[in-house]
């Protein structure tokens, strides 16, 4: 798992730190941070990531807009995207999944949840 390049987008530096630490504990060490959706989108244009973990509510560009814009890029058409957000309503989840998000975690979360969702996210498609 060491060679999987992960982009984490969250406007909270605390959440980015927690995500980076938790990902490291479960074997993912190549993590790039983005401070909002616009920053994340710029980083996707500049480099190729293997998966994207994004918050929903962020200034500049939110996570849903990020997912839509990233999905429109040919080299990101099949890159797994996971939303990690406080927006846990049923309609929110449906909207995100409809717009190209593959997995969804509602904050607050623990390591076990992140590990299980990462396994699902990165599972090879049949």
């Amino acid at each position: 798992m060491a060679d999987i390049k992960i982009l984490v987008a969250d406007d909270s530096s605390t959440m980015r730190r927690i995500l980076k630490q938790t990902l490291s504990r479960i074997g993912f060490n190549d993590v790039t941070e983005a401070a909002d959706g616009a920053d994340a989108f710029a980083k996707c244009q500049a480099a190729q990531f293997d998966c994207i973990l994004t918050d929903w509510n962020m200034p500049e560009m939110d996570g849903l807009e990020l997912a839509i814009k990233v999905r429109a890029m040919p080299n990101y058409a099949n890159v797994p995207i996971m939303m990690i957000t406080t927006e846990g309503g049923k309609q929110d989840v449906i909207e995100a999944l409809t717009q190209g998000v593959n997995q969804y975690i509602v904050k607050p979360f623990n390591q076990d949840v992140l590990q299980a969702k990462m396994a699902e996210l990165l599972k090879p498609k049949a």
Partner: protein
Amino acid sequence: MSNFDINLFNEKLMPAFRESTREAFETMAMTSIEIGAAIPKQKGQPEGAISGTIGISGSVQATAAPICGNVSLIFEKNTVERIFKAMTGMGPDETVNADELKDVVGELANMVAGGAKSKTQGNGVDFNISLPTVVVGEKHHLEMPSNTKSFVVPLKANSDTFFLELSFS
């Protein structure tokens, strides 16, 4: 004139906020908290050194009655430092900087409001939440407009006391 509905507050909003507050602190900070009873806010109280506020706006599904308000968390600085260290695994002697304190207070307020939003959505109340606003200043308190009903819920983690404040117009 206020549209505040005390039954809605007691039966749907308050239980959702209590549960989301417990989940946020116990899951992210691995800190067990005691949640006191909601009491009407007294002028100038509660005081704290750092507070995070999320605006909420929505309606009751059955009646379309509007809901508008704020949810705030109010802390002393030492309390936030201890919570930040518990959340991030930082050592007790490491220094937490001012930006980190502001960030974690905003994020905790976000989790409390977002969690309550999810819980009330399945219980007849829909609301959206804003991005957090954080205020820093020794012994500050939050002032609300006169048509607002505000309640304070004392929270206790170990020896630290901090506050959840809910205001609805």
